């Protein structure tokens, strides 16, 4: 059950995991909201607000980390000749799945990366989310083993794969040029951010590392369930947790407790269900929100559509009041999570290859 210790890829995965954990904590020290050094779903909501997809004045900022993830991944994929335009596998279900990834994350208050950042900062309310994520990934794997499949992607015209990296390149220009139509919060969570250049560099490094290693949180859980300790990714997740705990302890951000934690609520059932939705969807579409960004960077048009869906989802969860707060989960948020579960159950029925199963 032990990995191949002499494998260079194994150590690269460990490096990627620990870098994500440590830098995730440090970004909060450098100015990002507490326990949200890296939170793809929060950042997507911020970015959706910045481009005018919602009008919550406290949640509008074009997060440089997201731009870095996509561009870092694209540059790395080109350098290592892994950039390949591919797509055509159930485009609309993937787009809607992207939106529901943000719904599930918003109800929990955080994507799978933030889930573990919260946990490693001593937030015990994250345990319900971890259980939900693991169960969601397990249910997703059951689906795969019973023939649920969105279909194979195929090679596409190279231009298709460039669309999402080009969009994020445009966001990069907007971030520094600050045209009038891009909105930047002066109060609230979005006004709390690390210096843009630092965030961008961290994003580029993590995007490149994630592209090389295929590291993501739900992928690690999935491989851990499938292969146990033989999977390098589960060791990457271990390195992430260890790195984040050490960073939280050394920077004085560790505070053990269930109550009064930053950006957290105690409606554990909804935390569980929100993360269950995220875990299940992630298995179905091949990665959590972070992984979708990285795959979109390396030319995966299907992941690109999920990213577009995530941006739309970021606008919708804020506009329709679905996002949870420390006060708890709103009725629209609960309704949206259950709708997401209806969606994925329906997709599982419709996209099932019963002959193969």
């Amino acid at each position, binding site marked *: 059950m032990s990995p191949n210790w002499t494998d260079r890829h194994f150590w690269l995965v460990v490096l990627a995991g620990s870098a994500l954990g440590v830098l995730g904590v440090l970004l909060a020290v450098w100015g990002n909201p507490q326990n*949200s050094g890296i939170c793809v779903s929060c950042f997507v909501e911020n970015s959706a607000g910045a481009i005018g997809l919602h009008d919550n004045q406290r949640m509008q900022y074009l997060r440089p980390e997201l731009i870095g993830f996509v561009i870092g991944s694209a540059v790395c994929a080109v350098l290592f000749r892994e950039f390949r335009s591919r797509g055509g596998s159930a485009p609309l279900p993937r787009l809607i799945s992207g939106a529901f990834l943000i719904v599930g994350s918003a109800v929990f208050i955080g994507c799978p990366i933030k889930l573990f950042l919260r946990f490693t900062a001593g937030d015990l309310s994250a345990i319900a989310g971890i259980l939900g994520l693991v169960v969601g990934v397990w249910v997703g794997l059951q689906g795969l083993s019973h023939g649920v499949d969105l279909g194979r992607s195929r090679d596409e015209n190279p231009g298709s794969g460039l669309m999402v990296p080009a969009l994020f390149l445009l966001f990069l220009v907007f971030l520094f040029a600050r045209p*009038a139509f891009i909105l930047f919060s002066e109060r*609230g969570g979005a006004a709390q951010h690390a210096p843009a250049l630092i965030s961008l560099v961290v994003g580029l490094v993590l995007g490149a590392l994630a592209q090389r290693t295929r590291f993501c949180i739900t992928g690690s859980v999935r491989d851990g369930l499938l292969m146990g300790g033989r999977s390098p990714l589960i060791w990457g997740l271990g390195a992430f947790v260890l790195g984040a705990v050490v960073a939280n302890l050394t920077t004085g951000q560790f505070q053990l407790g269930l109550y*009064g934690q930053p*950006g957290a609520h105690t409606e554990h059932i909804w935390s569980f269900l929100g993360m269950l939705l995220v875990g299940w969807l992630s298995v179905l579409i091949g990665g959590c929100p972070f992984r979708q960004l990285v795959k979109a960077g390396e030319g995966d048009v299907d992941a690109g559509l999920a990213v577009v869906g995530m941006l739309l989802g970021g606008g919708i969860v804020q506009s329709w009041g679905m996002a949870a707060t420390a006060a708890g989960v709103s009725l629209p948020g609960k309704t949206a999570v259950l709708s997401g579960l209806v969606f994925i159950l329906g997709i599982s029925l419709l996209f099932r290859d019963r002959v193969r199963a």
Partner: protein
Amino acid sequence: MFQDRFDRLLFAGLLLTVAVLAGLLITAPIDASHVSGRVMDRQLEQEMSYQARIAFLTRRYQPVIVQLGQGALPEALLTLEEISRDLPGEVHSDLLRGDVFFRMGQLDRALTNLAVAVRQNPDYVDSASPLNQRQLIDAVVSQGMPQLRDRLRAQPGNRSLEQVLKDGYYLQSRLAGGCE
């Protein structure tokens, strides 16, 4: 890539359009009125309405602030009742009521009122906002919560105290920061 005349034509068109676009952006005046007026108007409107709201709250609640300064706490509560009749749903009344109850030593009621105010308007725990009241809220939470826990230990199962404790946890969480 450029296999025939049509390819070259497309490429020339592309270069020309990029050049025109670049020229447009470089030579465009930086005057705000030329840049997406509607968006600018919206941002300006939002900022003006926010500033107007702060000015309105400051003026409308000035008598309460004066009474608080003089230590006239029951009078301040009465004034807040009057204002609440005029402005039902305005949570600034709840915030100031929380302040009054804190000064009176009624920490449960202070916690409850402050939680109502912060739920409706997170600016009260935002250090970047002119409405920031973190110091007051922090003082109420740090003094109120230990007392509350002691009382709950003495009266386990007291529903109203449990609700106040929840309000306290909510305020603690908001003070701790994090995403919204």
